[in-house]
């Protein structure tokens, strides 16, 4: 028994010989290969289900691979797409205003984004005007945006185009709230990745009451509502 103890102690501290050292390396490589193989098998089992992404076919070439929820799907992805970034799901967002105040940046990386294909180009835009505004002019007292970040441009009677000046937008979400409540919901909040520093633990995500923040693949960094949700 003392011999066994001595042997274990030796194995934990340093290899007994060069042969043991190489054997240890080979064993670890073998275990890693086995884990990859097992992961792929589990992934294939998930996909074989009726709601699987590719109905049992091989992962390579699967169009839904990037969005695949399987924990092992990253094994099949190209290395460049395994990076993830923070993003805000517009379907869950309740426009509480915390995106403007909880970001570690001085001016939040969350900005209002306008989906033009959903926009009605309305003369009376509730994202631009305060509810109950006396006149439909761009006077400051009529505007919903506290920083005047929404530009209103006449196209033809009675259509107007609304664009966001992101240098002024603070991500408060007031326009998003009223656009969703009274309009088509074409204004949404999104984390802009040219500004976001991609913290390990996003300060806004930690304080988001709706749990709207999640990590998404870096090659599909934006989450949009489908245009069919136009109301």
């Amino acid at each position, binding site marked *: 028994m003392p011999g066994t103890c001595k042997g274990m102690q030796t194995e934990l501290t340093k290899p007994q010989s060069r042969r043991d050292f190489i054997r240890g390396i080979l064993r670890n490589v073998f275990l890693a290969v086995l884990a990859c193989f097992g992961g792929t098998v589990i992934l294939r089992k998930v996909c074989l289900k009726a709601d699987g992404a590719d109905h049992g076919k091989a992962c390579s070439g699967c169009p839904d691979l990037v969005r695949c929820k399987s924990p092992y799907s990253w094994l099949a992805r190209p290395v460049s797409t395994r990076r993830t970034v923070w993003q805000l799901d517009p379907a869950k967002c309740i426009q509480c205003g915390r995106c403007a105040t909880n970001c570690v940046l001085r001016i939040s990386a969350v900005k209002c984004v306008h989906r033009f294909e959903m926009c*009605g180009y309305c003369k009376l835009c509730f994202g631009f005007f305060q509810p109950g505004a006396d006149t439909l002019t761009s006077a400051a007292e009529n505007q919903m945006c506290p920083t005047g970040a929404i530009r209103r441009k006449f196209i033809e009677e*009675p259509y107007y185009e609304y664009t966001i000046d992101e240098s002024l937008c603070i991500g408060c979400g007031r326009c998003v709230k009223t656009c969703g409540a009274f309009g088509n919901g074409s204004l949404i909040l999104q984390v802009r990745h040219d500004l976001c520093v991609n913290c390990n633990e996003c300060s806004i995500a930690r304080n988001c009451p709706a749990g709207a923040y999640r990590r998404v693949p870096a090659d599909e960094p934006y989450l949009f509502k489908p245009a069919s949700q136009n109301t």
Partner: protein
Amino acid sequence: MILCLVFIAVAVTAVIVMWRGLSGGKCEDKNSECRYDIDALKKTDTNLLIRTGVCFIKPSISNLKALAVDCSDNIYVGGNTGIEILDSAGIRISGFAISEPVHCLSVSPYGDILAGLKDHIEVYGRDGTRKAVWKSPDFKTELTSISASSTFVFAADYVNRIVWRYSPGGELLGRVGDKDNAQRKTGFVVPSAFFDVSVANDGSLWAASPGQHRLEHFSPDGGFISYWGKAGLDAKSFCGCCNPSNFALMPDGSFVTSEKHIVRVKVYDPEGRFKGIISGQEEWSKGAVGLDLAVDSRGRILVLDPQAGTVRLYSKM
């Protein structure tokens, strides 16, 4: 020693106060959540409510989209799978399947069922036999409403922002509500997929222009006559970007309108003066939208609730 303890206590207190102050209190967050209370705008003034009795009809088909009533007060509902016919009490008479979802529905004075599918109209008999398929007027067409008189059939197309005028036999006769910059006619303004039409007793056409918050009146041949309606958050006006989403004409020429965003069903007299609210936001789910309307010969108001899959029948008390 005592002085030292006092100093430590003061230091700890100062640190706690600074930490709470710098991290932002709960009060501040609460205020930011309540700053724009849209729900307060949605409260219905009970003084404006018209007293009505309501009963619920539950058709057997799913994903209801369209509602119509014929001259015998039978109720027709259209959904993703077909059309169902109910009697005036809501008891099922018959039903038949259609290969495409029904987007809108009307019953002609001749008893034919006009089903508006995505881009064309199909004519069915009450027994479900398909009598005719009318050609799609445009490759972009998406129909949202049909209304028929004895001389014309009008179909609202929300993508082209136009009302198509057909003969009862299905011949395309023309367009109503075209945009004309030279005559400064803006045409219909339809920001979302809600664009309703209804034929009056005299054969003239009423059409909603939701982006302009008004109902427009046209002669049977498509000439513009007048309009009424204005935008606003008060009960007398039409709220949001684009309302009324649906409307129907009552036997006396009054209007019943339904709105989205602030969900409410209201009644206006034949001159467009506000009479009262039939149903307010409180009676509907938050996401209620697409409340198609119909009125029977007794003046009972039928409202389709697509989210709940029911038809509400409001009658005077």
